[in-house]
């Protein structure tokens, strides 16, 4: 089937619509998902189509939203729970980490937890420190949970559909800044992007840029800028932080021998730390330069626009990092 050019917001919406129409067990629960049509308008019209049985406006109870999703998944439903932004998912951390991620293992496979927790994520817009974070790596620390974050509309649809169909708990984060961004998306109910599969977004032979989420945009923009100087950069979108698929990164690195990691999140014990560690461990013989990381600066995000943007990564910072190791 042909692609349609739609926003990432609509791609996520279509994924949910298709899966709810396909499978009666799939339901949505979260704050403002029904009457309000979703805080980010992803679930607009859902209450009209599916009714309050399957589109549940929940109280502001993050722990209970997460826990009820887990409990209902254990007995056979397939919840897609929404926590408005990932900042509030910290309130549900115990459910995600001590329960969702552990129940299958702790009871030796007696129960499955086929749930998806959707959260908006990302820095900026003067949202300030407690509402402006990209903390996926925290959640990716724990075996038992899958963590995915799409960088574009096409992946958003395919990844979310795969997550809903999977029998494991998935934390699925959506970068707020990417919601309006359009892109070609297959108008196909069976279009899936498998869990744990990374993607080569651009090939190149001088340096490998590794990113996920919004970092992919900065990496692609930087690759274009570098091209003007004759530098051909490869861009790998990891898409999933867990399971982490390093195969394309390693393949590319064997050719480029250089790597810059681009991450919207903080640098300390980060996504970039893990990628760098794996490259030096597995690719030591191919290394021609240290792995560089372009991350947010190691500060809580301030309100004032003048200094807020200074803390964020951008394409120019990626170009600068590449030039340091060429």
């Amino acid at each position, binding site marked *: 089937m042909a692609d349609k050019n739609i926003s990432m917001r609509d791609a996520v919406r279509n994924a949910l619509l298709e899966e709810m129409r396909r499978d009666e067990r799939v*339901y949505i629960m979260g704050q403002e998902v029904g009457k309000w049509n979703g805080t980010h308008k992803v679930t607009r019209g859902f209450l009209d189509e599916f009714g309050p*049985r399957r589109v*549940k406006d*929940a*109280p502001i*109870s993050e*722990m*209970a*939203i*997460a*826990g*009820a*999703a*887990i*409990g*209902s*998944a*254990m*007995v*056979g*439903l397939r*919840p897609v729970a929404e926590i408005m932004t990932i900042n509030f998912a910290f309130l549900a951390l*115990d*459910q995600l980490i*001590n*329960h969702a991620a552990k*129940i*299958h*293992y*702790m*009871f*030796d*496979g*007696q*129960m*499955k*937890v*086929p749930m998806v927790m959707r959260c908006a994520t990302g820095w900026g817009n003067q949202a300030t420190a407690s509402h402006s974070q990209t903390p996926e790596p925290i959640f990716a620390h724990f*075996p*038992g949970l*899958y963590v995915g974050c799409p960088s574009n509309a096409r992946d958003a649809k395919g990844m979310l559909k795969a997550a809903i169909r999977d*029998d*494991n708990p998935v934390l699925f984060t959506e970068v707020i800044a990417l919601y309006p961004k359009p892109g070609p998306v297959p108008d196909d109910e069976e279009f899936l992007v498998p869990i744990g599969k990374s993607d080569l977004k651009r090939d190149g032979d001088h340096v490998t840029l590794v990113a996920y989420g919004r970092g992919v945009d900065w990496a692609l923009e930087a690759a274009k800028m570098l091209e003007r100087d004759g530098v051909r950069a490869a861009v790998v979108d990891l898409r999933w932080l867990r399971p982490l698929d390093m195969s394309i990164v390693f393949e590319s690195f064997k050719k480029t021998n250089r790597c810059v990691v681009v991450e919207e999140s903080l640098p300390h014990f980060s996504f970039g730390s893990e990628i760098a560690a794996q490259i030096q461990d597995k690719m030591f013989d191919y290394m021609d330069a240290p792995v560089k990381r372009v991350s947010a600066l190691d500060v809580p995000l301030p309100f004032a626009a003048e200094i807020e943007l200074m803390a964020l990564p951008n394409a120019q910072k990626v170009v600068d990092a590449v030039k340091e190791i060429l």
Partner: protein
Amino acid sequence: MTLPREKLLEWYHQMVLIRHFEERSLDIYHAPKPEDRHIGGVYLHVYNGQEATGVGALAALKPQDHVITAYRDHGIAIARGVDPKRIMAEMFGKKTGVSGGKGGSMHIASAEHRMWGGYAIVGGHLPLATGIAMKARYMDLDEVTLSFIGDGATNNGYFHEALNMSAVWKLPVIWLIENNLYGMGTAVEDASGQVALHKRAIAYGMEDGGRIDGMDVTVVYDAITQAREYAIKHGPILIESMTYRYEGHGVSDKVAKERKDEMAKFQDRDPIKLLAQQMHDAFGAGIDDEIKRIDAQALREVDESVQFALESPDPTYADLFSNIYA
């Protein structure tokens, strides 16, 4: 007494089986010779003293109903009909344990019995109960969820969020507080502004099921039988069962032993002795031999469970990695 003889004898058997099982567990944990301490680790929370609450409550359920509890879970599992051999094996950390030796004493579950587990984060299982009960409403099933709650768990946020959500959605949950007067070592009056814990139901617009004598199995059975009917028809109900634990919070707690007078008061109304007396009064001295026979039988079952656990294989290196994901 209107309850049939066979039913009472069955409850007596379960209660005395739990008592012997727990006493044997403690003996093994504290065995003088290290090589005899087959129950290792640092956690062992026994149910001695509280048997009437667990046995009476579960006797009122139907096979399709759901049960969930905290870490003081062996007795609940036995009362639900889970094989004591597989519970003991779990506590020994054996592959034949209900959770393959991966869960231990605090994580006894049996999906086939709809006993969804023992959970070790205080209050963490309460939203799971909410979620399990959601399925009954979602699919219009005649199923209730019985969630045990320690008195200590009424003071963290899980209690508030999970109970409120169940009330908003009128879910068929029986919230059963086991008030054994102490959350670890802290007395209820030192931890709760409202010491009549059942009254918290009022705050949620939920049915207040009142306070019941948790040492009398027949009282608990009657209360939960009525609660089941109520929950299916109308929604959640909160009941407070007054009981007492004869041992410390866990094996490391020696403080409980100092509460001699209080302990003696409760042991005067020991649930097992009380039921034996009730049966003696109702059916005459002829039943005393039957009671002795059941007592001996329960001891044999505990012996068999220990034997089974001793002869069972340990988990292997491969098991370390199995069932992390479904």
